[in-house]
């Protein structure tokens, strides 16, 4: 299968090469903090990070080595901000990052990285390689070199709250989902304890998952609402690497939660929105959030513990569970889904690489949205499908809609005999009245 470097897609064709270089350098400069410096200074070029990356393992192509993906950032740091930057610059020991180089790196930073962070776990020096790649994406976005698919959606989401012009406005879709499932879905209530978001993937492609979340929240008597100002969980600004757009999209959600006086922002089954809201939102808007942020499985596990949620046992099937990277490896939501599965009495068959060490679904970090990345994604996904099959489980469940989309697409591509199921749907279908 061809994994040759893809031709780049510029999100802005109006910039000249020198403008791209200047903007990239300005973005890099914003990222040069103590943490980045420590990460950049520590690399010993051991190459071990490649052995954690599903894109490298699947292709054995050295260009997919995670730390190589961060090379423009490293190069810029050495030349502009490191201890001996004047020395490197004076003697031309570190070349300037060029627009050509950035164009070549687009595939490495976007198509072949899910920001899954497995590389950060293997590094013997403890380098946060995934963070460096995120910094690389930020410079690409500023240089007008984020993939058009991602940046266009980020711009639309920042302006209107919806990453794409849907056939029907999302509030209308939500209303239809309620009607189809016999639910009254609260939208735009003036006050509520909980502001709930919905994955765009589910609103458009798997409305049953949205209905399931509502059903469970109503069953436990939660005081919640959706907001038409901020309905979508995903943050395309984060995917694209645009700090400005990520901030606008985040601010929209934070403002909506403030407006209803929410004590809790409930992140649905969406891994990257968890990272964007749970760990990055307070930093990107520059102040602590006046509410808690929890993933729906964390919240339901809390309700389970308090006895507010009781579940029926599911028998007759065995299940494999995929740990979404942003929730588990990078987010620490490891035990909550297992507490729910345990309460459901699932016969759980764990994969060889599980919990924090799980392989990525291949679709995260915006890769699902890149049509041209599909051939490479499928190769990486083969690893994962094999691991799932090796468990011997006959059903497969996860807690991230982006992962479900990636697996559903792979299932179709490979004629795989399983379909990814939503854990929250499984919970909703087995509530003990």
């Amino acid at each position, binding site marked *: 299968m061809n994994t040759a470097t893809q031709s780049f897609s510029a999100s802005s064709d109006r910039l000249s090469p020198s403008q791209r270089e200047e903007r990239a350098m300005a973005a890099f400069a914003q990222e*040069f*903090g*103590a*943490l*980045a*410096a*420590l*990460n950049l*200074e*520590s690399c*010993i*070029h*051991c*190459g*071990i990070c490649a*052995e954690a990356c599903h894109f*490298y*393992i699947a292709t*054995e*192509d*050295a260009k997919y*080595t995670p*730390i*190589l993906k961060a090379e423009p950032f490293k190069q810029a740091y050495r030349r502009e*901000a*490191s*201890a*001996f930057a004047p*020395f490197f610059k004076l003697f031309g*020991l570190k070349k300037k990052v060029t627009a050509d180089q950035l164009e070549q790196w687009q595939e490495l930073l976007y198509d072949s990285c899910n920001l899954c962070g497995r590389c950060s*776990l*293997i*590094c*013997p*020096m*403890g*380098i*946060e390689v995934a963070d460096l790649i995120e910094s690389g994406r930020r410079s690409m976005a500023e240089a007008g070199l984020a993939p058009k698919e991602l940046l266009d959606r980020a711009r639309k989401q920042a302006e209107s709250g919806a990453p794409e012009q849907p056939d029907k406005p999302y509030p209308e879709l939500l209303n239809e989902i309620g009607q189809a499932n016999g639910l009254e879905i609260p939208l735009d209530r003036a006050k509520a304890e909980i502001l709930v978001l919905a994955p765009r993937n589910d609103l458009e492609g798997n409305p049953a998952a949205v209905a399931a979340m509502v059903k469970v929240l109503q069953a436990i008597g939660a005081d919640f609402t959706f907001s038409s100002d901020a309905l979508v969980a995903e943050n395309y600004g984060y995917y694209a690497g645009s700090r400005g757009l990520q901030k606008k999209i985040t601010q929209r959600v934070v403002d909506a939660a403030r407006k209803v006086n929410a004590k809790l922002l409930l992140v649905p089954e969406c891994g990257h929105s968890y990272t964007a809201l*749970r*760990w990055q*939102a*307070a*930093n990107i808007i*520059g*102040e*602590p*959030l006046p509410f808690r*942020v929890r993933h729906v499985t964390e919240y339901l596990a809390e309700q389970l513990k308090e006895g507010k949620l009781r579940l029926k046992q599911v028998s007759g099937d065995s299940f494999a569970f995929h740990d979404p990277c942003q929730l*588990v*490896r*990078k*987010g*620490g*939501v*490891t035990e909550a889904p297992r507490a729910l599965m345990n309460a459901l009495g699932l016969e759980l068959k764990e994969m*060889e*690489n599980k*919990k*924090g*060490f799980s392989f990525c679904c291949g679709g995260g970090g915006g890769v699902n949205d890149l049509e041209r990345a599909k051939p490479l994604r499928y190769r990486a996904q083969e690893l994962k499908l094999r691991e799932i099959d090796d468990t011997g489980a006959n059903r497969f469940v996860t807690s991230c809609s982006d992962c479900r989309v990636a697996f559903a697409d792979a299932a179709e591509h490979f004629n795989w005999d399983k379909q990814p199921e939503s854990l929250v749907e499984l919970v909703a279908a087995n509530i003990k009245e």
Partner: protein
Amino acid sequence: MTLLEFSRGPMLHAALVIFVLGVLWRLTSTVLAARRKNNAEPRVVGGPALSGGLIAVGSRSWPHPEFIPRTGFGEAVGYGYHLGLFAIVLLGAPHVVFWKNLFGINAPFWPTLPTGIISVLSVVTVFLMLIATLRRAAHPVLRRISNFDDWFTLAILYALMLTGIMAVFGIGGRYETILALHIISFNALLIWFPFGKLMHAFYIFPSRFVNGYMHTKKGAAS
């Protein structure tokens, strides 16, 4: 002034000055880089988060079981020659004398290994370094990410090890000349140290600690 006198006199002193000032400057520039306040609500705070950092300092020395099948060989070779170097530098009798003289310390408790063991260790260490070098040259990933720093650092280490072995086994010429070349190699290592990857000796523990601390604060894998 003979070559030997020069190598362990003015050249060594200059190399030490460059080493100390360079290392301090590089570390200071890292520490002084802008720090951003983390406003996110942590999952774990205080002592347990700090413990997570400290645990990572040790645990990252040993690969997670999930990774061993793919990384075990490379890591064994890497750690192997590092351990060999440490043993030779810190426990070889001539080196112990050198350190004592250099720092003007009298440490009767400083143990040494017999010359025979140090000789065997030296040969084994060079052998492991050769494997590491061949891997760097042949492995597609290592070849792709290697730069001048990697090759120059290895060249200095080879010069240091080979002149040391030649001095111990009395081969390659007059002992004084070989010893002078050995000390010159050491001086070169000191001079290059702050500018290249050798600095990982200072960065390794803070880097691991910060990674472990940050991950533990989030309750994430580390």
